[in-house]
């Protein structure tokens, strides 16, 4: 795997996008819409990285993004990294069998990815603390709904960033290393 300056710069841009969106949803969104469930833009970014980067590259990049998210929440990074790790293998497995580039595929996978992340976070917390989190099905449904609804927008933004700053696209199916 080559880790050149361009890859690092591109990741840096995506990281800035994620951090800005996290700041927006933790501050502006709340003041405008109160306790309305927030979309998980950061999950979409992680999914995009898993789909459009080789796994050895997307995994650490996802970890870094999730680490930065802990500055917008009291969540322990382990509760984000573990579900992400498990889901990254699932996504890689799906990608190696069914993949077509485009917003529709991204939206379909974002439903499964967001749902999977919610379930795995819930279970991780239960198995590590012995406590059950409140289910809040309506709130979780709307989180999922807003996340999926925003997935085409996020996909187009990230694709644009990729096009602007990268020479090649990393959408090779089942590719592990460059």
């Amino acid at each position, binding site marked *: 795997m080559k880790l050149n300056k361009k890859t690092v710069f591109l990741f840096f841009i995506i990281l800035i996008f994620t951090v800005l969106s*996290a*700041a927006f*949803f*933790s*501050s502006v969104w*709340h003041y405008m819409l*109160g*306790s309305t*469930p*927030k979309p998980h833009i*950061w999950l979409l970014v992680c999914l995009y990285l898993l789909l459009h980067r080789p796994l050895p590259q997307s995994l650490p990049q996802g970890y870094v993004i999730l680490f930065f*998210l802990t500055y*917008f*929440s*009291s*969540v322990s990074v382990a509760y984000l990294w573990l579900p992400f790790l498990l889901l990254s293998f699932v996504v890689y497995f799906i990608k190696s069998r069914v993949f077509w580039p485009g917003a529709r595929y991204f939206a379909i996978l974002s439903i499964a990815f967001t749902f999977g992340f919610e379930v795995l*976070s819930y279970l991780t*917390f239960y198995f590590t*603390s012995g*406590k059950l*989190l*409140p289910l*809040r099905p309506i*709130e*979780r449904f709307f*989180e999922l709904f807003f996340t999926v609804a925003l997935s085409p927008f996020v996909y187009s933004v990230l694709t644009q960033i990729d096009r602007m700053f990268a020479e090649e696209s990393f959408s090779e199916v089942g590719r592990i290393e460059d």
Partner: protein
Amino acid sequence: MISLPLVSFNTQRSPFAEGWYDKPFSMLASASAHLFYGFASSVQETTRLYLDLINIKHKNALLKMENTELKTRLLQLQETLQENTRLRSLLEFKTSTRMDLVAAQVISHDLLSDHNTLQINKGEAHGLKEGMAVITLDGVLGYIFRPQQNTSYVMLITDRYAVVDGLVARSRARGIIEGRGGSACTLNYVEKSEDVQAGDLIVSSGLDNIFPKGLPVARVSRVENLAYAVSLKVDLEPVVDPDKVEEVFVITNAQNNDLTDRFISSAENEAE
């Protein structure tokens, strides 16, 4: 034909006299005059209406703009009034209490819905430290768990990691308030023989060295005395709604204040 004008001179009568032939002619004349007058006046009226319409349209647009501007200003004034009232109560509270307080504003909420934290615009540079109590005029909000240089993260009492030592204001039954995530918390380890009822006010006991004694924390929403459980199952509803909080106080020095009388009497009055 030539003599006809002369004849007419002869037939000239008093201008007030009316001949038999005058009536139909005068009727015809007045009718036609009326007709033309009506036409003329309606044309004038229509023209005036049209001109007025243009003016009205213009005035309407101006008034609409003015109305929107006034509405916006009214909203701003109402917002300022509310802010003013809030700040005045905060100031009154700050001046009337013996505790050392630092006022702060809420700048963001937790990104993840399973966690209940918020960020305030004061940090270590303003003397804030980890474990300091964060309150509002209504009662306990949470405590500082991650102070930064100019901001601090506040863990709300509803967060699943939050723990506050509390007691029932009415019966003095003790328990540990633990966050459940979402917008609720529970009072744990309350002996089954204790007297706890729905609607009871739970206050801080002061034993956790975070909150001074007597600050309202939550109200009992449900009590269950399960046969197989070793303690009562007490569900609580916090007195402070974190979604509506904009300004908070951080207690930098409680000076062993006992706020039982101050808060409980006002809280009981509100409940009644």
